[in-house]
């Protein structure tokens, strides 16, 4: 990866990503785990390409949204997470 130091915001994004993957590991079936991992990784990679690095307001908004979704996902009743695009 990069040898350059990560900014505070980048560290927050990475820790959120790690949190999602850890939550995925706690789910019962491997299918659920894979589904969560694919959804989360596609979402993070898409945002990393599309969102401007300096758009702090939008990145913080996404981080807050992500933390709320992660808190919901951690509860044992939740099985998977998905995203739908409405135009």
């Amino acid at each position: 990866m990069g040898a350059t130091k990560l900014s505070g915001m980048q560290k927050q994004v990475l820790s959120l990503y790690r949190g999602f993957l850890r939550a995925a590991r706690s789910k019962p079936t491997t299918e659920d785990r894979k589904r969560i991992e694919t959804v989360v990784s596609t979402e993070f990679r898409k945002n990393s390409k599309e969102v401007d690095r300096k758009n702090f307001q939008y990145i913080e908004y996404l981080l807050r949204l992500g933390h709320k979704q992660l808190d919901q996902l951690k509860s044992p009743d939740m099985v998977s997470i998905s995203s739908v695009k409405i135009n």
Partner: protein
Amino acid sequence: MASGLIGRLVRTKPAKLTSTARLIPSRCTSSATESKPSSGGGGRGSNLKTFQIYRWNPDSPGKPELQDYQIDLKDCGPMVLDALIKIKNEMDPSLTFRRSCREGICGSCAMNIDGCNGLACLTKIEGGGGAAKETTITPLPHMFVIKDLVVDMTNFYNQYKSIEPWLKRKSPASEPGKEILQSKKDRAKLDGMYECILCACCSTSCPSYWWNPESYLGPAALLHANRWISDSRDEYTKERLEAIDDEFKLYRCHTILNCARACPKGLNPGKQIAHIKQLQR
């Protein structure tokens, strides 16, 4: 679009309406059959007012902006919420704001109007006269914005939850299954605290809360803490006082008293906080 079609229909109506017929269109404000707010002076001496409203859409990320809307005050109800609903119905359906009761009891429509926090359904539009021809509407200050005028209230609600706003007793009630009795004098001690609607106007007007939103509980939560501390039926008074006896939770209050000024229900959270501080000694 559809509004253009309806606009054409309106123009085919007779220009002069009798007084009774005039009343009916103004009552069904949800439909767009009213005459459109005239752009650039209308007939019948319209009273135009500009509203500058904070807009930010998370889906099309950019910087937040103040967008101008012109409203004819003759076609609009007296309160700011009426103007917002009129704008959303007729001019810009993408304007997002919270609202529910339209009578100042739910606390959903709390926002910053012309620099002062208040409920949109209780704040009259400052109309007519030369003075301020522009009203600026922004979301509650120093709160994270979700979209346009909608703010993230989770921290505020969590702080309210943290003071445990329910009756706690150690001994069982004297008559099990019946109400715990309270004298009129004891009930009068709760006046000025139970009316709080958790609109967050006071907490978001407190500069101390701006600088420490996560550690300082804020006037609203402390008002409710005092409500439960002063309740004669509650037996955990000492524990409640100890729970908030903290450098940050309580003593960030420096009696700035912006909270009493901002409260749309006329309550005085600063006074209740002073009461708690007095009990702490």
